[in-house]
């Protein structure tokens, strides 16, 4: 009760592990990780496919391998962690932050700390969140739930599968279920483009001749006890189903891959300012939130598509927390950021250049597929940097690195604009 930690990390997934490691390396002494699951590693433990780590480790790893490397770092640095522990509440008491936890062994507990890093990640949108007409039988899973059943618990979710939504987890599960002997009839995507990475369309769908039906959605779920089939329909430009295009597909399983929501209940309750565009906290260059000493990183801030960038962002938050407890973190905001309407958000929202070593990486996404375009960064009318790319797509997060030297001497707003080449 009397002990005050330097940094407590809420969540032991990829962001939490990287944040704890970096905080400790940067000088935080007493670091603690709180994890509600039975082991560290978070969602990586069920992501048994490869493709992780190319940026961080320069090799192609599976999710569990990527997690184990970070878990080993946590163990090597003797960072303690508590498993099966749920964080109920976070209170800002000024000098200290107070965390209320519960677990089976110790019951209810209070932990005081000088700084906190929020790394709770995100959760999947469910059938309840998207409201498909029809019945509510068994056999409807989020793609991630089916992934956990198959890859970790050893239960096959079904034999004849339709997938709604072309997010990466949906694509990965299309391949996974096929490998385990299921027939995947179709992946339906309401948008005219996929929401997953192109490489996943190639290696998960094309390799197994699984049809990707763009501009299609499910308009009826059939079956009273177990799902028996779905009616799919083409949609127009306004995403409205077109009469006469109905097609019935028999299936015993429906997987939903329809988006992820940052898990910010604790942040909101604690009074952390939330950005309506990201549904995550407003953060600074070192990922400090609106509450001094409270940092955030990973999918709780913005839904990433690559874990490598989660680790990178979490490293910033870890560094920030260590600087904060050493009274070394500047709160002198140099400028804030904004975007035009073609970009859906930008992270970070505030920058204190005093805390920046050599460059700031800004993360953003386009709202629609953009070809032959560039993203320009402006202070007022002055263009300071340009991001080029072959093609910008909503499914791929853009990282736009700007050297500190180009950001110095300005104030007000740094504005990101999508413009013609």
């Amino acid at each position, binding site marked *: 009760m009397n002990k005050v930690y330097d940094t407590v990390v809420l969540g032991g997934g990829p962001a939490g592990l990287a944040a704890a490691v970096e905080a400790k390396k940067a000088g935080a002494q007493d670091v603690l990780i709180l994890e509600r699951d039975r082991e560290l590693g978070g969602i990586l433990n069920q992501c048994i496919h490869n493709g992780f780590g190319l940026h961080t480790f320069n090799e192609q790893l599976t999710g569990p391998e990527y997690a*184990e490397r970070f878990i080993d770092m946590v163990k090597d640095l003797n960072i303690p962690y508590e498993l099966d522990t749920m964080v109920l509440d976070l209170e800002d008491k000024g000098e200290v932050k107070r965390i209320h936890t519960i677990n089976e062994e110790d019951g209810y507990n209070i932990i005081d700390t000088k700084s906190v890093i929020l790394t709770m990640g995100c959760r999947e949108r469910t059938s309840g969140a998207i409201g498909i007409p029809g019945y509510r039988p068994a056999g409807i899973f989020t793609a991630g739930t089916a992934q956990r059943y198959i*890859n970790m*618990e050893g239960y096959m979710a079904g034999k004849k599968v339709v997938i709604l939504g072309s997010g990466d987890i949906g694509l990965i599960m299309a391949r996974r279920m096929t490998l385990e002997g299921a027939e995947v009839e179709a992946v339906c995507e309401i948008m005219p483009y996929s929401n997953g990475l192109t*490489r996943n369309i*190639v290696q998960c769908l094309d390799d197994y001749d699984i049809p990707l039906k763009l501009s299609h959605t499910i308009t009826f779920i059939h079956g009273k006890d177990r799902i028996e089939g779905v009616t799919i329909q083409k949609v127009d430009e306004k995403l409205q189903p077109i009469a006469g295009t109905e097609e019935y597909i028999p299936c015993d399983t429906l997987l939903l891959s329809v988006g992820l929501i940052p898990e910010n209940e604790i942040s909101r309750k604690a009074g952390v300012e939330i950005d309506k565009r990201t549904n995550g906290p407003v953060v600074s260059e070192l990922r400090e939130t609106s509450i001094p000493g409270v940092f955030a990183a990973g999918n709780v801030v913005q839904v990433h*598509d690559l874990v490598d960038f989660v680790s990178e962002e979490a490293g910033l938050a870890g560094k920030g927390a260590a600087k904060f407890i050493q009274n070394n973190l500047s709160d002198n905001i140099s400028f804030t950021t904004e975007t035009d309407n073609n970009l859906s958000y930008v992270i970070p929202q505030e920058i204190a250049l005093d805390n920046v070593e050599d460059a700031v990486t800004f993360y953003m996404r386009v709202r629609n597929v953009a070809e032959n375009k560039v993203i320009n960064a402006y202070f007022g009318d002055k263009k300071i940097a340009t991001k080029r790319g072959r093609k910008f797509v909503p499914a791929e997060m853009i990282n736009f690195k700007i050297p500190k030297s180009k950001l110095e001497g300005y104030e007000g707003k740094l504005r990101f604009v999508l413009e013609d080449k």
Partner: protein
Amino acid sequence: MTTTKELICISCPMGCHLKVTVDGEDIQVEGNTCKNGITYGIEEVTNPKRIIPTTVIVENGKLPRLPVKTSEAVPKELIFDIMNEVNKVKVKAPVKMGDIIVENILGTGANIIATRSMESL
């Protein structure tokens, strides 16, 4: 005879758009941003290969399934045969990440290796 194929590189999440031109023995790859793209482009038109990640049953482990993968990419047409072989395998915990679970699976030269450590109960 020259044939051209448009491919998307799956070596990493960048997803580079490759143009592979085959002229007899001579294969040219364009559009790659690293050397992995050249390897992928050439293999994809001659002998397409994939890494297979899957699971095996683990007994006496903390969890009931152990994730595994082929230690290197294996010919695409063998994917389902390899799945059949791997599905017959049962291992006993404890297992260390990187342990060989099946050696030289179906004569491909690739091993099936554990992709996480699994403590015993």
